[in-house]
């Protein structure tokens, strides 16, 4: 029996320990599920196994033989094949060139024999029942689902000893997911160790014989799947958290503020309806990349969308960030450095840059005194030290930069604030300050839409949480029932019946 054994694997990036001595045992002939929240270390573990990343310490053996890792070519030579979540196929090359990359049939001088290459690619596709895919097309012109299927075909070009499916089904339709998992099963039956990394609890339950749960860079549970129920697995994924981060809220949400119906962004997101109330903190949850970003960008006017919306009693168009801000809807984007800040400019200017017309005299010159006063007032509100107003934003810590972004957004005096993962990469102390600020704003009647990749944040800061999957709203956790478990349950789809959405 083939056996993959990982022991004491450690990896840190700077001061952050991503893996703290992870262990894992997976047998050949079985599908082994690997579960964990975002940031639990799953992806890092897979990257080490596939040779993309080097581990700091620890050992990996296959059938008792140590595996040489650290380079993709070494892992491949050892028989480890990975179907990457972020596709590894090259968009400008053709399907045939991609499928046989590095194993092209060559003649003299490394000349690739074009016809034979295409024939081999066609044979390979036929082996997997994918004859419909044209081997001469540039890969980038294929639909995302087909590209993911080709990723699987490429990984199974030669029989693997270890097959890693790294969230390979997360972007796929049910039909395609079933196909991918079927290929995983076939590889297992041929004796391979198959590791299935997924967020979908139901998938692990349906396909994996065993499951290992990672949390915070440690393996916290390893059981045969049949011996653990969903609650046990979810509890293992979450663990215990003891953080007093979250402020008490005073007021309760009042009447409707922003009503959106039939919102769609391209064909990836929507149609969906939602209502935000005055003084409400509305959470948007779900796994990463389920359309939350697009939803917030659309509401903030940063991407084109279709559908209709009313802000208080007036129609709301949201056609550009500028108009959205003028109407009272302000978006705080996810990537503060790229989308929110002028890094080389001083803090004061960053605070006022979104509202410069207010400080501009007739003729186009800026009233420096009024600008400085406003900047100082904002700095006080969001808790940035006044002596930093003159320094470039790039000199500030991540947390302080985020406060500047918030200060800028608040200077426009919004009635709706859209926050996209505004505490990512922010230290705990600043997080608490930001949450307090959110609570104060809500108590003043501002409606806040908050997306966060951190479940505990959603559960503790929001009045209610809408959960998204594949671009749609799949459920709502009302205020009385808010908990990390409830959100995660909807997000991983272990209770598919609760698809009705009260908006």
């Amino acid at each position, binding site marked *: 029996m083939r056996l993959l054994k990982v022991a004491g694997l450690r990896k840190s990036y700077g001061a952050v320990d991503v893996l703290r001595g992870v262990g894992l045992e997976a047998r050949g002939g079985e599908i082994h599920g690997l579960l964990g929240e975002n940031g639990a270390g799953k992806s890092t573990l897979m990257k080490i196994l*596939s040779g*993309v990343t080097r581990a700091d310490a620890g050992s990996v053996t296959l059938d008792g033989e140590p595996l040489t890792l650290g380079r*993709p*070519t070494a892992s*491949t030579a050892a028989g480890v094949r990975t179907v*990457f979540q972020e*596709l*590894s*196929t*090259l*968009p*400008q*090359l053709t399907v045939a*060139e991609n499928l046989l*990359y*590095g194993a*092209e049939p*060559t003649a003299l*001088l*490394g*000349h*690739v024999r*074009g016809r034979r290459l295409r024939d081999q690619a066609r044979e390979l596709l036929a082996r997997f029942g994918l004859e*419909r895919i*044209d081997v*001469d097309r540039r890969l*980038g*012109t294929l*639909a*995302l689902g*087909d590209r993911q299927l080709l990723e699987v075909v490429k990984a199974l070009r030669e029989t693997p000893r270890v097959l890693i499916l790294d969230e390979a089904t997360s972007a796929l*339709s*049910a*039909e395609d997911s079933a196909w991918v998992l079927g290929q995983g099963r076939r590889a297992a039956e041929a004796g391979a160790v198959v590791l299935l990394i997924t967020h979908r609890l139901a998938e692990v339950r349906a396909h994996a014989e065993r499951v290992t749960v990672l949390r915070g860079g440690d393996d916290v549970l390893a059981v045969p799947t049949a011996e653990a129920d969903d609650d046990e697995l979810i509890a293992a994924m979450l663990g215990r958290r003891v953080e007093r981060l979250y402020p008490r809220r005073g007021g309760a949400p009042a009447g409707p503020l922003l009503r959106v119906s039939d919102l769609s962004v391209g064909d990836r997101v929507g149609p969906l309806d939602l209502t935000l109330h005055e003084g409400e903190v509305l959470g948007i949850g779900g796994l990463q990349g389920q359309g939350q970003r697009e939803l917030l960008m659309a509401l903030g006017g940063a991407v084109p969308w279709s559908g209709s919306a009313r802000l208080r009693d007036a129609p709301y168009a949201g056609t550009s960030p500028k108009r959205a801000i003028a109407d009272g809807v302000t978006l705080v984007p996810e990537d503060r450095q790229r989308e929110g800040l002028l890094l080389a400019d001083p803090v004061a200017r960053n605070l006022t840059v979104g509202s410069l017309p207010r400080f501009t005299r007739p003729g186009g010159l800026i009233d420096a005194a009024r600008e400085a006063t406003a900047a100082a007032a904002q700095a006080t509100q969001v808790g940035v030290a006044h002596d930093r107003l003159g320094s470039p934003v790039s000199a500030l810590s991540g947390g302080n930069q985020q406060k500047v972004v918030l200060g800028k957004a608040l200077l426009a005096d919004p009635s709706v604030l859209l926050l996209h993962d505004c505490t990512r990469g922010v230290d705990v102390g600043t997080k608490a300050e930001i949450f307090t600020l959110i609570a104060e704003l809500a108590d003043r009647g501002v409606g806040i839409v908050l997306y966060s990749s951190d479940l505990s944040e959603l559960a503790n800061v929001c009045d209610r949480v809408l959960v998204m*999957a*594949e*671009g*749609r709203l*799949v459920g709502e956790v009302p205020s009385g029932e808010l908990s990390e478990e409830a959100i995660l349950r909807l997000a991983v*789809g272990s209770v*598919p019946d609760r*698809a009705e959405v009260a908006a």
Partner: protein
Amino acid sequence: MSTATVPVERRLRLPRPRIDWGIAVTTLLLATLVVVDLSLQPALADITQIGLLVQTALPLLFVAAAQTLAVLVRGIDLSVGGVFAVANTMTAVWVGAAGGNHQLLLLAVLVAGLAMGAINGVLIAGLGFQPFIATLGTWTAYGGVALMILPSDGGAVPLVLTSILNGTVAGIPASIVIVAVLLLAWRVLRTSRFGTQIYAVGDDEERARLNGTPVRRVRLLVYALAGLCAAVGGIMLAGATSTGSPTAGDPYILMSLSAVVIGGTSLRGGAGGVGLSVMAAFSLILISDIASAMNLDVWVSVAASALLLLVMVTARALVERRAEGRTP
């Protein structure tokens, strides 16, 4: 959750006629200019005359080929001007002055070009310099070397070179044969495994690495080959003008970039090719030929080239949008 199964029929795609619009647009441009030039100067329709026209184009063709290689791996090579000048002055001074085996000495010039390109490659692939910065620096450095070899225009180009360039092979002017050899060499490179790796690195470096591509080695070799091509360009100019010039290379830097862009090689890397740039470079030469045939001022041909750059970039964007539809 939307888990409705997609009917298989819906995903079948009709086979599209395979027209490579990038090549089509560039070919059309070249063909149009050839027709215009021939109608203005009917005397050109003669193999010897064409050979002479191609001879004037040779230096640019080779520098454009060099630039294309760098751009394909998502880089840029400003130092082609410097490498060109070093090769040009070496040919006019060292090779010309030395007695004996000129062919061997010309080979040494090519090796020097390869070495200068490899230095770029080490700076960029090995030490992680931005291609723009690294080759901006080496351009100046190589330019200095050229001035050291030959402080002002002059020198003596070996006769063997001029006679090769002005000769014929089986009745075909040597310049045309040289272009054919360049295109053939490119085809061999393009269809080799190394060629696929070049495109892979330019397409997406991270993904290329995931696929086991030796990314740094590919980059280094590509810059070395670019140095070689730029050196050939310098030798060609020396042969065509029978003299050396330490500053002759500089105009070719921007002209080669124009040729790359007009030809349709993506500045983002991974798409395009030397053949396209060669056609575009020849188009630029034809424009100045047409302008001089019509007795137009120099500024007209310069302005026309600039306009062409903008027109081609626009045309390409429009055609690609229609051909590809919406691609992510």
